[in-house]
């Protein structure tokens, strides 16, 4: 088999992201660009979560914490110390990675529901802590000086640039997700998901593998947090740690298919578009949460493998293309 054919599974994910960028470039409307900014953000966050949720089988109800903490740390360096966006993003990713490493060492030995409960506690504790942490502005948060955008050619240019930076980051997440899935390390994670004790017997060093999976799944949300709040111009505890977003990320992963590379991309895109149209429709505006909940329930009860998982199961021919 030719070498490139082995990586056919990466083709569709890449095409989707490149397609979004080209589409936005061609239409050249700020409104379209903003819409796809949220779609790309959702794809990147869901794909990151998938590394720990889908590959390793650990339900994290607190993944937005990495987005929030990365946002806060990066924002702090930009607004207080005047660092450039690039260095700040690096710090944001680093902060999220370090937090994930420490948390992973502490709580990843918990199995099943205990881990899920601990992450709920972590989410609440971190948000409560940041609300009381004075250097980060406490409950009011922090605001960027408008002048900071000048080094990027003005606010409008900074907004446009953020989109392309995000697209590059999303591409990075997807390639990372694919690389992990194809690697021996990823195989170890899948083994942990199926049966952790058996995996350990077969020589997977589960505590290390789980911790690194958690770190890999946290770094990009941290970087994206910095970028998002750079574009936003201010940061507040409420915006940085929305518990509901942690859950939405889970819905996206489940919708598309947990444990596949393409699943979270599909799930994030569909969910964001659906949410957008529900929010604008008069009938569903107030109960969009109920609709999302009903959708999640139907998936959990009847299609637990998600859309891509179902396709792979029903049409084995597609397995090489749909990773």
């Amino acid at each position: 088999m030719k070498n490139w054919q082995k990586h056919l599974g990466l083709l569709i994910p890449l095409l989707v992201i490149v397609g979004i960028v080209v589409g936005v470039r061609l239409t050249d409307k700020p409104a379209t660009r903003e819409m796809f900014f949220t779609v790309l953000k959702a794809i990147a966050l869901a794909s990151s979560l998938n590394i720990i949720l889908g590959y390793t089988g650990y339900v994290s109800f607190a993944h937005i914490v990495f987005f929030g903490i990365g946002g806060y740390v990066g924002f702090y360096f930009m607004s207080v110390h005047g660092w450039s966006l690039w260095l700040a993003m690096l710090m944001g990713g680093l902060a999220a990675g370090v937090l994930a490493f420490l948390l992973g060492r502490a709580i990843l030995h918990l199995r099943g529901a205990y881990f899920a409960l601990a992450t709920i506690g972590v989410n609440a504790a971190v948000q409560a802590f940041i609300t009381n942490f004075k250097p980060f502005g406490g409950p009011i948060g922090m605001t960027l000086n408008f002048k900071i955008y000048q080094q990027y050619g003005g606010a409008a240019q900074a907004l446009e640039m953020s989109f392309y930076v995000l697209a590059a980051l999303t591409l990075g997440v997807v390639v990372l997700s694919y690389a992990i899935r194809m690697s021996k390390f990823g195989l170890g994670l899948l083994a942990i998901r199926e049966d952790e004790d058996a995996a350990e017997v077969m020589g997977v060093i589960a505590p290390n593998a789980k911790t690194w999976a958690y770190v890999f799944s946290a770094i990009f949300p941290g970087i994206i947090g910095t970028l998002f709040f750079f574009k936003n111009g201010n940061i507040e505890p409420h915006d940085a740690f929305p518990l509901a977003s942690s859950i939405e990320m889970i819905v996206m992963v489940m919708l598309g298919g947990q444990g596949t590379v393409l699943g979270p991309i599909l799930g994030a895109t569909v969910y964001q578009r659906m949410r957008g149209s529900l929010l604008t429709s008069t009938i569903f505006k107030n109960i969009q949460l109920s609709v999302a909940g009903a959708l999640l329930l139907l998936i959990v009860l009847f299609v637990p493998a998600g859309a891509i998982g179902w396709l792979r199961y029903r049409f084995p021919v597609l397995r090489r293309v749909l990773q």
Partner: protein
Amino acid sequence: MESLLAFLVDGLLLGFVYGVAAMGMTLIWGVMNVINLSHNVLIAFSMFGVYLLFNNMGVNPYLAIILIAVMGLLLGIVIYVIALHRVIEAPQLSTLLATFSVSMIMTGIGTATWSTSPHNIEFSLGSLSLGAITLQGTRVVAALAAIATTAALYLFLYRTRPGRYVRAVANNRAAAEMVGVPSNQILALSFGLGAMLAAISGGLIATFFPFNVLSGMNYQLKSFVIGVLGGLGNPIGALVGGLILGTIEGLIPRFMETSWVPVFEFGLFVVIIIFRPSGLFGAKQ
């Protein structure tokens, strides 16, 4: 010093009421190993149920709580049959997400019906003075009702046939089935009982605190903290856990800003779950 005692007693009274909600959570966990993430809406809906019965029909709040408790039991059974029964044997991810989706659906309906603005039950039983301490009547009654509920739960679990079935299923479902316990009905009943305890607790809280559709989340988080403190699956532990949480809530505002309370609560929660996941007094009895 006296004001410290007043804060402490007040916190303990609240602790009893929180303990009831946690008992429901921990009962469900003990019987079927499900973390009920729809506890929040059960609490919130019962608050609004009591509110509607009292404000619109003039029903006495405590009578209303009894009615709401029965509705909670039935709603719990319905939730179990629709959302949970199909995935009860599936990996934990499925049951977590199934109960969570119930929470999303009902939160959406609740938000559309009552918006998220705060509501309040205008009801007072005066206050009770014990030396230097003054206690709100509604809180004293709520604590007494919580103790009565606990006693009733124990009588049910240890003195009645369905109660014994519940304990048998919690101990070993397969063995219970083998000796003829109708385990499907018992699982549904247990979930209903857990929902009923959440409803009672929510109704009692509504008699002295303002609330909105999203308030349940806060009390659900408290239930987790309490449940883990007392040991998941251990109802009496839940009551003790509730008292510990109540003490923290009563005392911390005396020494620092109230906004630090959640930091301590959830910090303690994470510490306990890391170092002693079976709780302070051990899990399932």
